[in-house]
């Protein structure tokens, strides 16, 4: 009986979490008439919406933009955050204050950064460019990445490094042979998180890109016109925009088994 209850609970939880996502795909296959009859499940599937976003309002550019921006910004974030997080974790650089300041950038209301940078970008000609958005995402993701990596670095016992040093290893060798292999899973998770955040980010993309560097998230909003919302094509674009994040989820699942502890709780 208890087992039955357990599985009923699991099924309900999964339904609540997954049905809205499944609904994106269901809706994307509906014809314009069926869109307004959501209860009709036995509809004739059509690729009308997908054809629409391929031809009537091409969206390929938006995918390319989102890909460029998220990959390059994530590379920059890791280049900045990995050494910094190591320094915070191992040397307690800045006595905790610097780490707090870094984290606190994440609690800036978006507007605090958006207004000054809007005018700065306008003067520098960075509005609606990949570079402009990449730099913003560097700032946007850096604090979270540093925070996560800080936790992972703290999990590596200091004694390992000490004994390696006693054995005559140099700093570089220690980094390459001991720290890097141990931090790899944590760094992978952080990378994926940054990629997803950049891919999904809407606020800055919406304010700082118009046409040329527009990302998928902004492309979605465009279907909400002044007259009507084009649910069908919007769902089709969503269905495609979600795919990379679903792939990332599949990738992360392996690491969840290991258990992401944020370095905070140790048994």
């Amino acid at each position: 009986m208890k087992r039955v209850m357990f599985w009923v609970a699991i099924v309900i939880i999964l339904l609540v979490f997954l049905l809205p996502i499944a609904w994106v795909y269901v809706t994307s296959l509906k014809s314009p008439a069926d869109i307004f009859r959501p209860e009709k499940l036995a509809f004739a599937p059509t690729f009308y919406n997908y054809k629409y976003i391929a031809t009537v309002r091409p969206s390929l550019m938006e995918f390319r933009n989102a890909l460029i921006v998220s990959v390059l910004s994530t590379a920059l974030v890791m280049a900045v955050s990995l050494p910094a997080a190591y320094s915070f974790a191992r040397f307690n650089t800045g006595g905790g204050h610097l780490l707090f300041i870094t984290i606190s950038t994440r609690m800036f209301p978006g507007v605090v950064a958006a207004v000054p940078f809007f005018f700065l970008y306008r003067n520098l000609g960075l509005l609606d460019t990949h570079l402009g958005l990449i730099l913003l995402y560097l700032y946007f993701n850096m604090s979270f990445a540093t925070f996560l990596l800080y936790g992972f670095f703290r999990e590596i016992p200091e004694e390992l490094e000490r004994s390696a040093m006693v054995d005559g290893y140099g700093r570089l060798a220690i980094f390459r042979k001991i720290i890097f292999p141990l931090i790899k899973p944590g760094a992978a998770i952080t990378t994926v998180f940054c990629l997803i955040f950049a891919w999904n980010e809407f606020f800055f993309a919406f304010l700082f890109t118009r046409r040329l560097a527009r990302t998928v998230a902004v492309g979605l909003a465009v279907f909400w016109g002044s007259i009507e919302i084009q649910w069908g094509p919007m769902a089709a674009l969503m269905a495609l925009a979600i795919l990379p994040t679903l792939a990332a989820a599949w990738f992360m699942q392996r690491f969840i088994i290991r258990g992401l502890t944020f370095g905070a709780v140790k048994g």
Partner: protein
Amino acid sequence: MRERVSVEARRTFWRILAADRYIRWFLVLPLLVVLSCFMFYPLFYSLYMSFHEYVLRAPPLFIGPENYRMVLHDREFWQAIGRTFYVLAVCIAVELSLGMGIALLLNREFKGQNTIRGLCLLPLLISPLAMSLMWNYMLHVQFGIVNQVLVWLGLGAVEWISNPKIALYSIMLISIWQWTPFSIFVLLAGLRGLPKDALEAARVDGASRWFTFRKLILSMLTPLIIIIILLRTMWLIRLFDPLYGTTRGGVGTESLDWFMYRISFVFFDVGKGSAMALFSLYVTIVLCAILYRQLIKALGAAK
């Protein structure tokens, strides 16, 4: 000869750098550079503009603390703040309780455990804008599937998005749906890291389940709970996407971030917008500093 000196000099340079005292600063240097550009520039710009009247047409005009006076007397501003904090409290409370419940449920061995745990995390990873647009479609008063089901059950349709009394709760619903997995994720990781022997000892001593949960599990997970509250506070204070996907700030749902966005980017009242942004930043920092201190304290206790 000169070559040898330069080699020697370079070696000394690297040796100095490799000394703990310097390498730690060398490692955070890139971060410091980015921080100072992206943090201090906007801060000083906003500080400067907040003492000026600047609505784009004329150059900035110094008006002293007039903007702050206006902001502090702006009823809409206070309403937006109150609303944001209300959303904050409700969402975090619900997410934490749901997350803890589900994490306890998932924290056992069962068939397909990894797949099911992975599936529970999906909402977290999907574009908030996309999902709020999807929820808007599903909650539509006429052709939304949710109302269709409610009508079919004989409960009657609900004006999820268009009723000012309900719209804010719909936005919370979307937020909670999307972010409960975050609590599950963190708490589940914490539960799996708990020392098995302590729990076993409690069981042998005949402690009740509720007692074990309250005294042992909850106290050991306190740092993680504070981390969740801290991060969710930071993210929820900038509540924007779910609004854009549903009410667009209307129907009594305007959050702080949306209000500031409207002042700065729709009315282009940069001076007032800056004053507002700085004020809300101040509130946020105080709030998060308190939480951060709690976190450090809890971390010290957990050790």
